């Protein structure tokens, strides 16, 4: 057999790796190659999969590269997967979104935003390792602060937290920013400027 190309070596490494593999890790495993050529090889590999219309593609997720099936295969692959498809309840998603965008955040802050008790949801998210305890906040009571995990990025197909969808402003109800309108209300600050 001919000498394997760097692309093939990296493909093999990614194939056997059980998690996303970072460029750092690849470079470490391939001391004979320059970091730049490793990076180039990964990109070539990604394009290869892309052009070939393969059932597997190379995705940058949670700070590394990972071979994943393409979403279009879902209906076929889910037949093979045991059990029911994973689902997230609205409350789990809301809570997760709040933690993701506002971390580090305390439970009390989450509950203020959601208007409901969030203990049970947080507990499940912790158990599923989508959320973790970051530490304790240095305020009276020393409440626990929460943040998202690497698994969160993996599950939600995110390169990093910056890859989160941008928070949209409230839509379809009104475009006017809140305070502009509030000032015009009869209860507004008309009394000021009298002294």
């Amino acid at each position, binding site marked *: 057999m001919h000498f394997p190309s760097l692309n093939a070596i990296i493909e093999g490494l990614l194939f056997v790796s059980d998690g996303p593999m970072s460029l750092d890790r690849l470079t470490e495993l391939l001391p004979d190659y320059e970091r730049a050529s490793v990076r180039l090889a990964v990109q070539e590999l990604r394009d290869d999969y892309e052009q070939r219309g393969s059932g597997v593609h190379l995705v940058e997720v949670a700070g590394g590269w990972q071979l994943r099936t393409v979403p279009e295969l879902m209906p076929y692959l889910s037949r093979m997967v045991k059990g029911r498809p994973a689902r997230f309840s609205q409350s789990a998603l809301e809570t997760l979104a709040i933690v993701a965008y506002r971390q580090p955040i305390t439970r009390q802050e989450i509950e203020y935003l959601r*208007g409901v008790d969030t203990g049970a949801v947080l507990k499940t998210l912790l158990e*599923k390792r989508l959320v973790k305890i970051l530490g304790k906040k240095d305020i009276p009571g020393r409440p626990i602060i929460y943040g998202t995990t690497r698994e969160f990025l993996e599950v939600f197909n995110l390169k990093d937290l910056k890859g989160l969808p941008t928070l*949209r402003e409230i839509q379809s109800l009104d475009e006017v920013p809140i305070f502009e309108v509030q000032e015009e*209300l009869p209860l507004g600050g008309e009394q000021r400027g009298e002294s």
Partner: protein
Amino acid sequence: MPQAAETSPTSLFEGAEQGYSIKLDAFEGPLDLLLHLIRKNEVDIYDIPIALITRQYLDYLKLMKELNLDLAGDFLVMASTLLQIKSRMLLPLPDPEEGEGEEQEDPRAELVRRLIEYQRYRDAGLELGARELLGREVFVRPCADGCCLEGFAGDDGPFELDLFELSEAFNRLLAKIPMARAHEVAGQDTLSIVDAINEILTRLDGQDSMEFESLFQEDMSKERMIVTFLALLELCRIKLVKVIQNSRYGTIYIFPSVPVTDDNGVVDALPFT
């Protein structure tokens, strides 16, 4: 085909044209309910008609109470907040001299801020949930079962549906029947509940679960649909099946709760046959 999760809260007070409709929906919390009311009334969120919204909100709480549902404390807290805002809006403006230096704010401002903030995260959550998730749409080699999502079924799910949710789902199906057929006189196609029970169990045999909607075919008569639904209720009552949803508004699944058939797919001893 990928199934888009059904997400939006629906149908509180809607569908009133049908006398039998269950006017109930589950909301994730008081803010969720308020947003729904604001949308339903098509009012400006920055200028909420507080009396109207408060009345509808209290109506909803009353409905929950009448139906003996767990009235969570969070909903009551919001009710009192609404009433407080309402009463503050009825008060005359404070004396300018006394209120000096203090910012006079619309009593609703804080609530509006919370609603908007809440909606942003709710939408962001829905957007997250619609992504291609590992273990759902996308898989990796070492863990085809979805290592990270394994067993994840939501914070409080999988939960068994209560009667209202099931009725609502059934009503949605009934509503799909064309009017012309709704008045059909029962033909030869009669089906007893026991037959329907056996039919459901036969179809469930050898399967982990089936979707609630697949119980009902498009060409079924209304009578047949109702009999099938009653059969399902009966199966729930005698605990031969479980009706489960992984998330609110999600797909409803029917699970056999115990192995009820022998190898030939024959039901042994239904309690009332």
